[in-house]
């Protein structure tokens, strides 16, 4: 396994967060590429190597879960680690794990994120085609959008943990 050849993509509209994540990725020994929006990421030339995507849930233009839909439609095969500022998304994450490799809450512990990246890359190596299931993905994403929209009202739900 050539972990260090892997590329970790970051899509986050916050430049401070982006910059800090890129540092972490480099410190972890991977290549890093950062984008400030989903559209910017989609405009990138097709990528066929080993990698994963760290994706912010809430962004202007296109939300993280929407990007997941587009990626599925375009057969972009990358495991995704969601990052969100809200700590009030449901725990468990069985539906999440069907599509998203992981789901972490900001501020995220560096070790936890490094572990998640390693896990995502391992997973991609083990079952490289797991992302291409557009039917289930669409359902998942509309659920996801709904959950994100409802986060403010869902303060009584348990925070997800890493």
């Amino acid at each position: 396994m050539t972990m260090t050849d892997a590329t970790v993509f970051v899509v986050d509209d916050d430049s401070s967060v982006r910059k800090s994540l890129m540092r972490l990725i480099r410190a972890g020994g991977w290549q890093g590429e950062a984008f400030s929006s989903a559209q910017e990421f989609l405009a990138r030339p097709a990528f066929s190597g080993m990698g994963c995507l760290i994706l912010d849930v809430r962004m202007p233009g296109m939300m993280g879960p929407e990007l997941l839909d587009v990626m599925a439609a375009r057969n972009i095969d990358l495991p995704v680690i969601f990052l969100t500022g809200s700590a009030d998304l449901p725990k468990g994450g069985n539906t999440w794990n069907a599509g998203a490799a992981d789901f972490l809450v900001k501020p995220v512990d560096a070790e936890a994120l490094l572990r998640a990246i390693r896990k995502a890359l391992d997973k991609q190596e083990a079952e490289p085609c797991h992302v291409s299931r557009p039917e289930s993905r669409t359902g998942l994403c509309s659920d996801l959008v709904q959950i994100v929209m409802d986060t403010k009202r869902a303060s009584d739900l348990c925070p997800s943990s890493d």
Partner: protein
Amino acid sequence: MLFSGLFEEHWYLHLLRNRMRLNRAIPSLEGKDARETVPMPDAMGDITEHRRTEAALRESEEVCRAAFEQAAVGMAQVGTDGRWLRVNDKLCAILGYQRDELLRMTFQDVTHPEDLEVDLNYMRQVLSGEIKTYSMEKRYVRKDGTFVWANLTVSLVRDASGAARNFISVVEDITARKKAEEELKRLSLQLWHADRVAQTASITASLAHELNQPLAAILTNAQVGLKLVADGNPDLEEIREILTDIVEDDGRAGAVVRGLRDLLRRNVTGHEKINLADTIRQIVDMLHSELLDKQVQLRLQLNPELSVVADKAQVQQVILNLVMNAVEAMQCQPAGQRRLELVVTYSDGGEALVAVRDSGPGIPEDLHTKVFEPFWTSKQEGLGIGLVISRSIVESHKGRLGFANNPDRGSTFYFTLPIMLNPDSERQEAVFPDPESLSTEGR
């Protein structure tokens, strides 16, 4: 003597009024008076005329004296140097001094230090003939050290040659009214504050997110830094960059906390010079994540030059109210068509104008009068007092709040505030005790 004279005059005038040209109706109690007024056929007309003038004069003097002494308001003759020359009982009561004590003092001695300069300025203007009279609300310091609010009216008496003789001052105790006004103001401020707290509570999630982002970056940066150090032989330049970023993000988090503290501040620190563009930006920064959630596109058109003298928290509250209303109104539109525009510019009348323009459905004609009614609301949440409070806040700043439907789509809510013409000197010139008078300066 005085008594008999008065008695006699009254009868005399009374008879005159009845066209009975008699000099004497009843005998005087004193012979001297009686002798003087014995009717003499030759001189009768002269005497009548003379007595009439004298009597009228004396009567008017007496009326004046009675009016002065028994007036329900404080009255005084004051020397051009400020010395009390003559004071009535009521004034003594208002100021809490004995008459003889007051007569050894000046009005400056009993004037509240903060109100003295204004009073003296007016006095100089009267003396120089610039103005004939003046009226002001001021505080006196009573003998027991408490303040009394008074409405003071002053005019100047000049002698035949036009030289200033003394001032006539009328002092009306308005403490009760002032107390009622202050109580009303206090209650208004409480209500405004409660609304501000409610407004802030409605954007808590957004605020938490704005605080969380820099904290997330700080944690990641710090942990990377620690890892680099732990791995040994760290690149010092990279460590320096990491620390620089941490400092910057800490500043960003601090700004959110400061903004929040400003907004929730209970005690009004009064009016200060604020730049409207900066003030709006601070609010917009706090709303960043809220606008993202509601998928609202924001456009700012802020003239950076416009400054006003205002209570910053209250102005931000008004902006927050209008923006949140606009965001709410646009939720029925498809996500791609929710456009919010914030404008700071000059109004047609040369005032500062803040406009919040949305692309929602607009305000239906039949609701145009309703939107400013308390407890009327089209929203699911909220009391429906946001606009009422916003309007009263703007009006307390001598501005106007209104709205209009846009020609294309949506509505624009706007408010005006008087512009500060002399931005660098407003603090030093603020001699008026009433903070509201500051906002009118430079109009």
